[in-house]
């Protein structure tokens, strides 16, 4: 708790930036020394310039065409990032949306569990990437196969954690609720579901992490937009600076998703004892 302050002290900031600065300096020296072909390794300055160009709008500002804000957001990068994010969110919503009710049912009812568990155990070890040929065969190219793959990536972590969450609900809450007269539905919605949320959210975090990996891969294969598509496209033109700039953007988007998940987690689990850090 009290560690938050020293982390932002000048000394700590200096220590923290030491290694990155050294790595970038070394990289700059290597790439400008002439020892390495700049197509293989562009200089960091070149990457930053390219990243900036990737961010900026491609067309000149024309007030007659659109508003200032729309123009400012019309750059290629923001469009790509938006496309990727849209797929992650949609795919995750589909995958988690199916996994949550199934997980609740399987966790809460041994018969449903016995019915579905064998199938789940067979399907679970198959990496989502392995579904790519099938996804293209079934859905063709475009958003549909990407969303399908992402949904599969998100499905299993959420399912497994939801089952575990329901099973680990402390019996004392069930007894207290029964004593208060809770029926089956109330018990499920007001007691079991909230009691299982720490597990479910942990599963959701793993699921969205998987979804983010899968979106990049599926964009390299099935669609013509998004960050994954863009860096593969850049390779065809041998634009190594744009590849690295795109990777950097992927990292930023991943970080943004992670921060968003963290916020959501902290809000939904504000009652949770383990959360005071």
């Amino acid at each position, binding site marked *: 708790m009290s560690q938050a302050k020293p982390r932002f002290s000048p000394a700590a900031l200096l220590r923290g930036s030491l290694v990155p600065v050294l790595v970038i300096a070394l990289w700059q020296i290597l790439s400008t020394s002439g020892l390495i072909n700049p197509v293989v390794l562009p200089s960091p300055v070149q990457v930053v310039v390219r990243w900036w160009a990737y961010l900026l709008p491609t067309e000149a500002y024309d007030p007659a065409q659109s508003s200032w804000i729309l123009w400012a957001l019309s750059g290629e990068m923001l469009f790509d990032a938006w496309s990727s994010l849209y797929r992650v969110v949609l795919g995750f919503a589909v995958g988690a949306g199916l996994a949550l009710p199934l997980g609740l049912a399987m966790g809460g009812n041994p018969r449903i569990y016995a019915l579905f568990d064998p199938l789940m155990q067979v399907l679970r070890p198959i990496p989502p990437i392995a579904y790519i040929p099938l996804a293209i065969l079934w859905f063709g190219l475009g958003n549909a196969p990407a969303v399908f793959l992402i949904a599969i990536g998100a499905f299993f972590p959420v399912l497994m954690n939801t089952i575990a969450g329901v099973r680990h609900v402390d019996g004392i809450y069930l*007894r207290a609720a*029964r004593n208060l007269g809770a029926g089956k539905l109330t018990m499920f919605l007001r007691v079991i579901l909230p009691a299982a949320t720490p597990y479910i959210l942990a599963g959701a975090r793993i699921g969205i992490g998987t979804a983010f990996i899968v979106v990049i891969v599926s964009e390299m294969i099935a669609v013509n937009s998004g960050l994954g598509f863009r860096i593969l496209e850049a390779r065809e033109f041998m634009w190594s600076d744009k590849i690295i700039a795109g990777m950097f953007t992927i990292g930023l988007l991943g970080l943004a998703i992670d921060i968003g998940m963290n916020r959501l987690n902290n809000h939904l689990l504000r009652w949770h004892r383990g959360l005071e850090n």
Partner: protein
Amino acid sequence: MTPMLKSVADTAPVADAAPVQIQVRGVEKTFAVGAQKIVALQNIDLDIRKGEFVCLLGPSGCGKSTLLNAVAGFQPPTKGTVTVDGRTITEPGPDRGMVFQEYALFPWMTVAQNVAFGLEIKGMSKAEIAERVEWLLQKLHLQDFRNRFPKDLSGGMRQRVAIARVLALDSPILLMDEPFGALDALTRRTLQDELLRIWEEVGKTILFVTHSIEESIYLADRIIVMTYRPGTIKRDVVVDMPRPRDGSAPEFNRLKRELSQMVMEEQQRFSQDEIRSVTAD
């Protein structure tokens, strides 16, 4: 027999006029632990009158919780019956509000939401719930904590919420399993006094489990002393002292000595059992 240790039949406490509300008949409860059979309760016959404050007293492991759970409907007895107002108990219900030692508050609900939960289940209107919750929060001095989550409350405060939560149900019977066992002495005394005040005000039947002799004398109309394995009723002691009771009064101490004697006998059997089970490992 000292004048303090009269049987129920030859005293005339206030509750004597009241009808029997909880009737335990020939209750036996056994648990199978591996190949071993544990007789947690045997031959329990007990009548509790409407409005009585009864303590179950005995060392750990003598079946107090098992008996309370049978009345609550969580664990049906192996043999025998429990009836409440003539109806045989088969499942838990809001007519027998339970307060657990572990509080058992729902950590995802605020204080006010915890108290309101039972009323929502009952299907009471929003306005009625709000009014009743408010009244209970005032009564248990929780009004400044209404929007806190249980994790941000002390043990004493949590138990106040748990008490408010069952009082909300307005059930005629309160079952309490060592509710103050985890609290410090001062908090414990405060909550004991508040419980007595509420009991006198709203007139509930209370079955209260404790292993503290002092607590049982301080609170109860009647103390049921239990034996250890098999769990039977060793003694049914009427406490005929005006409240608030003074822990330094001679009759309080006389009763305390007698009860200590009884509890110690059972405690020793419990300790021997523990030593045996440790050396057997």
